[in-house]
């Protein structure tokens, strides 16, 4: 981007290749400084937060400057050195809910070109029955050559592929070219300069927003799909036609004072919609809490039409009040489920879950977070799943994240916005239909090693289990795979054999693109899981997971929360170079960034979070004059 008329953006291309859900995206931009003096040129791009940057380069006057992935601590030292000498640094910032922004700027000499190339990779997650590729494009002006090109290779076969963009008008819509074959799809969008213009002769561009491709694959094999390429395997498991397992869900709803207003109203609306979606064989309970815990009924209730109608009335009556006693509310909810289980009031084959929705820090009853986590873990005892919804920017997301992961669940942030009701409903929908419990994917011991997590507490409808690993025998002809789990009626057990697919045969014209993608997919998945492990469990296990994740991040050149990419800009006239740092943000950092953004200026949090002067444990109430 540039506001200078003398700088022309010659081309912007986004080239995305998806192979077996693993997306490799290269964003390239070329700009020309037409002025007779040097100009600063900015390269601002956004990438999905689930992606890892793997490469960045700038080509200026024939010289290429390449980013180097380093251990974060080492990069930080370089960074601090740069800061102390008055130079700037951080390249990556949070941008909205799904994206993060990579920004860099360089001075370009008169009548010179610059080429920026950013590469990132991610494993697309199946949610609500489809994968999503999100490409955000915001060129500031019309671009001589603009192109988004996406190629999808899915050996299982594509069941559907949809492409749309937030900026697509009726005029631009026909420019999206989509070619879908059985196992391959090509989507491209390449408007001319005139087609990009907001009006004839205007410099403004229509291209501003999200280009989104959604697709799913065919699922015929009960055992799932296994791909073996270059010594690594990946197993995708999401079998078709499995009946859902009934669930027993306790909704624990924060109604403390800070939920007042929109958040409380959105929670009520979402609850009403969620209750409506309960299946008749499900059981449910509603607990609302502030400093006290109030339960709709003493025990879980079958989701009959009448009960759901009554519960909806109850949900509509929830009003904000008081403080936040998460500990007691969680324990009450868990104990209710345990009591009903013990009394055989719940179906034998059913899944127990607690869904906590809160917007704040515990500040009543037990306020100590590790203690609450310990209490919840101990009360649950591995017998139910906990899903936590953190509403807004003030919630301690890390607290909820760890607590969920320790109890076979996940946490999700709910962003304060007009669509919060939908966000809540979407999350519920993701976990509303369990298909299998305690799923184990078993591979021959003597044929594989470095296998990613192969036990999953549950498989939900619309999602997918992915396991990858390394083969110890590259000449493997047959690969026996077994999947075990607990389904609605019987124990689920399937076996299958995976053969090595000859990609040269399947995609005869394009074999060059595939290379080491399965190995990189395995590395990506392993690092993600190690990063998760580094948050929970005993200290030595956390340290081991961190060390291993760091080692692999460096080996595979992924910018993860443990590594940084150091980009060295061209030397300035005074002969100094200025290293820049691209980091991977954690969810906490994103939240912090949003808080700061909402404060409109930085450097303010330190004042706000400074601890008060304290003399003794007991409180002091005073009146004095200045």
């Amino acid at each position, binding site marked *: 981007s540039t506001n200078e008329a003398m700088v022309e953006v010659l081309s912007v291309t986004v080239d995305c290749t998806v192979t077996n859900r693993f997306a490799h995206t290269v964003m390239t931009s070329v700009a020309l400084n037409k002025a007779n003096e040097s100009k600063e040129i900015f390269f601002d791009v956004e990438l999905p937060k689930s992606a890892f940057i793997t490469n960045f380069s700038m080509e200026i006057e024939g010289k290429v400057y390449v980013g180097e992935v380093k251990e974060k601590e080492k990069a930080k030292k370089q960074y601090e050195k740069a800061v102390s000498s008055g130079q700037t640094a951080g390249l990556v910032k949070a941008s909205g809910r799904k994206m993060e922004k990579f920004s860099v700027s360089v001075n370009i000499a008169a009548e010179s070109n610059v080429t920026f190339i950013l590469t990132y990779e991610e494993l697309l997650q199946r949610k609500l029955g489809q994968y999503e590729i999100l490409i955000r494009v915001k060129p500031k002006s019309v671009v001589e050559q603009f192109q988004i090109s996406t190629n999808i290779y899915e050996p299982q076969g594509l069941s559907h592929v949809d492409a749309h963009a937030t900026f697509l008008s009726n005029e631009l819509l026909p420019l999206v070219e989509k070619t879908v074959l059985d196992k391959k799809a090509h989507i491209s969008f390449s408007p001319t300069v005139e087609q990009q213009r907001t009006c004839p002769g205007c410099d403004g561009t229509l291209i501003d927003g999200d280009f989104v491709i959604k697709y799913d694959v065919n699922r015929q094999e009960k055992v799932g799909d296994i791909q073996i390429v270059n010594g690594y395997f990946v197993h995708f498991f999401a079998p078709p036609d499995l009946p859902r397992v009934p669930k027993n869900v306790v909704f624990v709803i924060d109604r403390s004072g*800070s939920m*007042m207003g929109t958040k409380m109203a959105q929670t009520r609306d979402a609850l009403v919609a969620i209750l409506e979606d309960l299946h008749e064989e499900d059981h449910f309970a509603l607990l609302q809490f502030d400093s006290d815990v109030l339960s709709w009924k003493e025990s879980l209730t079958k989701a009959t039409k009448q009960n759901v109608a009554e519960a909806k009335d109850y949900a509509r009556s929830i009003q904000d009040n008081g*403080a936040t006693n998460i500990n007691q509310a969680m324990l009450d909810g868990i104990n209710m489920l345990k009591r009903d289980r013990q009394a055989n009031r719940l179906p034998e084959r059913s899944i127990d879950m607690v869904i906590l929705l809160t917007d704040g820090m515990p500040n009543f009853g037990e306020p100590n977070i590790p203690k609450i986590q310990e209490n919840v873990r101990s009360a649950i005892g591995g017998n139910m799943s906990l899903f936590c919804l953190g509403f807004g920017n003030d919630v301690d997301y890390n607290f909820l994240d760890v607590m969920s992961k320790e109890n076979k669940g996940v946490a999700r942030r709910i962003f304060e916005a007009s669509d919060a009701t939908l966000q809540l409903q979407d999350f519920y929908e993701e976990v509303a239909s369990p298909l299998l419990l305690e799923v184990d994917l078993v591979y021959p011991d003597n044929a594989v090693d470095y296998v990613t997590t192969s036990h999953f507490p549950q498989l939900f409808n619309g999602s997918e289990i992915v396991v990858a690993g390394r083969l110890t025998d590259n000449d493997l002809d047959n690969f026996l795979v077994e999947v075990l789990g607990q389904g609605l009626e019987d124990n689920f057990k399937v076996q299958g054999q995976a053969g090595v697919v000859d990609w040269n045969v399947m995609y005869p014209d394009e074999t060059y693109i595939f290379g080491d993608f399965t190995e990189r997919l395995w590395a990506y998945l392993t690092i993600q899981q190690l990063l998760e492990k580094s948050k929970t469990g005993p200290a030595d296990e956390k340290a081991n997971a961190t060390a291993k994740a760091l080692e692999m991040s460096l080996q595979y050149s992924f910018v993860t929360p443990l590594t940084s990419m150091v980009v060295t800009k061209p030397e300035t006239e005074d002969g100094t170079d200025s290293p820049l740092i691209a980091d991977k943000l954690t969810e906490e950092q994103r939240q912090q960034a949003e*808080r700061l953004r909402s404060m409109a*200026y930085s450097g303010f949090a330190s004042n706000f979070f400074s601890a*008060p002067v304290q003399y003794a444990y007991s409180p*002091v109430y005073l009146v004095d*004059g200045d």
Partner: protein
Amino acid sequence: PHFIIELPGRNDSLCFNINNVPGTIFNLVRDPEAGVFVNGQIIGDKKIPPDGKINTYFWRFGIVHRTLGVSLQVTTQYISVSQDGKDAKLLWTDTASLKGPNVDVVVTKDGSLTVMLKRSVKFVILLHKVWKKHPYHRDYLGFYTLDTHLLSPSVHGLLGQFYHGIEYEVTDLRPGESPEKPDATMFAKGHQLNVTRGWQRDFRRDVKNGENVPCWFIHNNGSGLIDGAAADYVVSSLF
């Protein structure tokens, strides 16, 4: 005067100012069940300062423990203690202590007075000495409650209502008028209040400069945080 409610369990504090015309007497602590009452009278500056802002301070406290038969009057000049009809008078210019069956009093010269009422309450009164020839200011007192756990649940008053804790939540942090003092929304006692992050001074360790206590400042004489309005705490006499 500024009020600070320190809440170490939450690592946080609340603060507010209460002002009124000089001479007004406020009830700070009222516990009819335990028989404990603390009232304080405010004074203003010697004359209106150039900025026109009238500052008021406590200069006189009346403390009564009816059950124990103890009463104290503490002014910027002296401390008088009455127990079971026996009176004693102490001066701020002396270091002195007084040990009775129901009350212990310790005065440090020109500094502080510590009062321990048996089985009920412990508090400290600080004397702020101002240069006698100061054109505007004059001596004033600070009142610090240190131990309240034996007071009854019905304790009330401008300070007393907080002795059993307060539930509140703060959210929606946003820039305020001053870059260092952001505004936020507080939910307390069923009210939604606009509050400002700032600090007030606790003078116990450093009576001259005080130490800053970061706190959520509640505007308009603590409106919404205190029960009722400041005027509801005005009483007609010190005892």
